[in-house]
């Protein structure tokens, strides 16, 4: 791996996105609309304060997962992946480049969505608002990392899109948003302990309910980052320079 090639790859991916202004607009505006809709639905109830922050982590996670899996699938199908792997580019450079590029996009998305939720919609945050943004960015990077890994198994756009219900919805059901994780049946509780989104949502919840949440949040964020590294390493491992 070389930092120069990783950054060159990230720059190339960002340049591709820049040529597609509608995608940028969707990335930034859609989470705000969804959060706004949520706030409106639960107007005059405490529910928005409970659900708002976890969803602020989940929306970027899902969006980044989708965008990344489609982007890497396109790279495979256009033949550019084969060209790159025949060139002196490390697999880590490619995967790392995507992670950096989409991580930056995710940061913009999280900043806008969190700012909108806190300052416009009046989301009540016990801890500091910047922690909210940090966790949202980490969640989005997790979505990117899982998207990179999973796209290795998709042979068509149809399959890539199906991976959303297959990989993301079970995590969504078990992450503690519908029912606190400790109330889940024993087996499901154990399963949810092994899923990355659980830690992402735990971190978001800690930011909103604890005034001095830094310790708990950092522990959960570290867990999420472990999943990110593992998914990126597995993603790089699935790239083959030689194909049948």
């Amino acid at each position, binding site marked *: 791996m070389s930092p*120069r*090639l990783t950054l*060159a*790859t990230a*720059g*190339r991916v960002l*340049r*591709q996105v820049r*040529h*597609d202004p509608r995608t940028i607009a969707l990335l930034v505006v859609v989470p705000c609309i969804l959060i706004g809709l949520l706030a409106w639905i639960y107007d005059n109830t405490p529910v928005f304060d409970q659900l708002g922050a976890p969803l602020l982590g989940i929306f970027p996670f899902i969006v980044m997962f989708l965008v990344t899996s489609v982007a890497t699938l396109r790279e495979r199908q*256009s*033949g*550019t992946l*084969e*060209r*790159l*792997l*025949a*060139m*002196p*580019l490390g697999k880590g450079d490619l995967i790392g480049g995507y992670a950096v590029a989409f991580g930056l996009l995710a940061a913009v998305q999280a900043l806008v969505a969190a700012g909108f939720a806190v300052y416009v919609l009046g989301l009540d945050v016990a801890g500091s608002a910047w922690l909210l943004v940090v966790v949202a960015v980490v969640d989005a990077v997790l979505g990117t990392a899982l998207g990179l890994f999973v796209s290795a198994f998709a042979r068509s756009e149809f399959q890539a899109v199906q991976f959303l219900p297959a990989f993301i919805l079970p995590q969504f059901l078990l992450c503690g948003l519908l029912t606190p994780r400790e109330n889940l049946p024993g087996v499901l509780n154990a399963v949810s302990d092994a899923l990355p989104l659980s830690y992402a949502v735990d971190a978001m919840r800690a930011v909103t309910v604890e005034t001095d949440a830094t310790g708990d949040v950092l522990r959960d964020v570290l867990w999420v980052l472990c999943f990110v590294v593992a998914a990126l390493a597995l993603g790089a491992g699935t790239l083959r*320079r*030689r*194909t*049948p």
Partner: protein
Amino acid sequence: MMKNGGTAPAIAVRDLKVVRGGRTVIPGLDVTVGRGQVVGLLGPSGCGKTTLMRSIVGVQQVAGGTVEVFGQPAGCAPLRSRIGYVTQDPSVYDDLTVAENLRYFATVVGVRRRDLDAEVERVIAQVVLGDHAKARVDRLSGGQRSRVSLAAALVGTPELLVLDEPTVGLDPVLRRDLWTIFRRLADDGVTLLVSSHVMDEASRCDRLLLMRAGVVLADDTLPGVLESTGQQDVESAFLTLVDRAAAAGHRDPHDTLESSFEREAR
């Protein structure tokens, strides 16, 4: 041009065997390509040209045999910046401009930052796309797109160019221009392996590899091929070779068609 592996041939393939999807595509192929030549790989669609090229570039899983490029095993890391590979379908980013594409690929092959602009300009001029440097690739015609793909293989001045049907679908003027570029590169010491299913491109090559069903039927110059078959054009020569190989194959099923043919030719 000869950095290392001094006198080793550009390409040395020995007993190459490739199986794809349970089907033997290349049953055991030997071929050697000297440096600084334009070698035409001719044969019908599906004869294994692309598979052989992929094996030489080092992106094909092989079932047996050895492939060496400049004396080093194909696909090894030091070779990756010395080989330029152009796939049959243009493999560049549709949503980037021509210059943005080439800049990225130039960075990947190790062109230094301060040389990037000059290098991009040089390869764009080489494939005659000067007017389109700032155009997005998806706004270009098919022929222009394949020239962008070719330019992406020319960055960093590779010593071996493996080009899979680079002239397919191009108008005659453009085809002639491309062959002029190939000739100029070869004069600079670059080795080119160019595949085509258009037999009349044979006259452009220093040497021909006629291929059918994963087997090299002939490895000779154009006059050599015509003389040994007693034919006037490559297409008829090719058909003669196929007939001879089929006849030889019947007599000795355990031997490869190629070696049987070679024995008979001698």
